[in-house]
């Protein structure tokens, strides 16, 4: 990013999205509290706050984890992906309410320091049925909070996309901890089968969607092993198989490359968006720029540079088109280095 930051970037579309999120989360909270009061009329306000915020946070976390694979399987889900960051912050706030009220209710009223009490009030670490599940929730809350406070683009730029991505992949560790937190908690305190069933369904759907979308991405990504020409360029097929304004993704040696066809030309750039390493090969050309399917970051196809005032740069690759065959040199050029796009022959007859 090369322009000033805003605390929160709200476009008209994002405002609408956030209003929907707030309305749906409020509905979940109201429904959960209503049903809880109906089933357990003796429940205290603190218990209702703890349980409703925990339930809503875990539900939103599932939605967050489903949005990624769903938008890879079906592009109609992409608008949900653009604003996933705000959903993550809402989830973190709900999780903080759950965590803070739980700490006050269960650990802050004695003589022992609250943080020590979390780890020592129940020391059955070797028991499954009596395991101190709150410890798992504590670590999950730490990861989720760390993700929320580093979610701004300032952190993406200053931590670097690899570190930032590593921190934010922690969501899967947090999810695993929370599955165990909820499973062990409901095992100790719940008599109804409802929670284990919901947890099992949520877990299976999450695993299923990730497995399916991962398999589909691998299937779409062609691994090219040859043949090579005298310039050590690899043949990756004919240009006809790339739709105009679209791309294919190939893996050659250790490089994952997005090959774009636009205005009768072929250009190749690194497949990984500088923003959050989104798959550029699954994007398209919008306003003459390669556009990332995840958050709409843009790059010129011929030099991999973001249009001004932004300054992100991708590695580019040298290409050639001979007899309709595309050839790629898998040795990347420096980020932002201009290359002459290859011209597709007889493009008009192909259209």
């Amino acid at each position, binding site marked *: 990013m090369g322009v000033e930051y805003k605390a929160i970037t709200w476009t008209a579309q994002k405002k609408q999205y956030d209003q929907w999120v707030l309305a749906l989360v409020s509905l979940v909270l109201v429904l959960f509290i209503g049903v809880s009061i109906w089933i357990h009329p003796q429940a205290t306000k603190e218990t209702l706050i703890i349980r409703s915020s925990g339930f809503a946070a875990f539900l939103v976390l599932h939605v967050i984890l489903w949005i990624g694979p769903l938008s890879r399987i079906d592009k109609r889900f992409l608008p949900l992906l653009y604003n996933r960051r705000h959903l993550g912050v809402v989830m973190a706030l709900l999780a903080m309410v759950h965590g803070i009220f739980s700490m006050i209710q269960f650990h802050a009223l004695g003589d022992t320091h609250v943080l020590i009490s979390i780890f020592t009030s129940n020391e059955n670490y070797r028991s499954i049925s009596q395991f101190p599940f709150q410890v798992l929730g504590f670590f999950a809350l730490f990861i989720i909070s760390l993700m929320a*406070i580093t979610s701004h683009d*300032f952190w993406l730029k200053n931590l670097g996309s690899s570190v930032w991505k590593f921190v934010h992949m922690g969501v899967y560790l947090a999810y695993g901890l929370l599955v165990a937190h909820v499973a062990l908690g409901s095992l100790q305190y719940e008599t109804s089968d409802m929670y284990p069933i919901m947890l099992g369904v949520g877990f299976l759907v999450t695993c299923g969607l990730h497995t399916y979308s991962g398999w589909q991405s691998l299937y779409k990504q062609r691994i090219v092993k040859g043949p090579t020409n005298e310039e050590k360029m690899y043949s990756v097929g004919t240009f006809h198989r790339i739709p105009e304004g679209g791309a294919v993704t190939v893996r050659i040696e250790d490089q994952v490359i997005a090959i774009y066809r636009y205005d009768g030309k072929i250009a190749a750039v690194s497949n990984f968006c500088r923003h959050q390493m989104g798959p550029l090969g699954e994007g398209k050309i919008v306003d003459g720029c390669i556009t990332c399917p995840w958050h709409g970051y843009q790059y010129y196809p011929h030099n991999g540079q973001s249009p001004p005032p932004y300054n992100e740069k991708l590695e580019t690759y040298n290409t050639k088109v001979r007899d309709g065959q595309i050839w790629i040199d898998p040795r990347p050029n420096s980020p932002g280095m201009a290359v002459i796009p290859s011209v597709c022959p007889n493009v008009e007859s192909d259209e």
Partner: protein
Amino acid sequence: MESFLLILIRCLYAYLLTGLLFYLFFVWKGLKYIDRPASRSNVWFKLIILPGIVLLWPYLANKWRKSRSR
């Protein structure tokens, strides 16, 4: 065990307090060295990045030190 944990907690408090003091100084003097657009941004943005700076201040201090030595 408990006294050891109490020492750890006091260290944590000291770390976070240092982070808070670092934040004030960093936003005033250091931000422009590592991210000029951030130093020009408004007060709400600077408040949004407060928790992250308090938590990750050694990383930013190192980055600031490197940017000054360049």
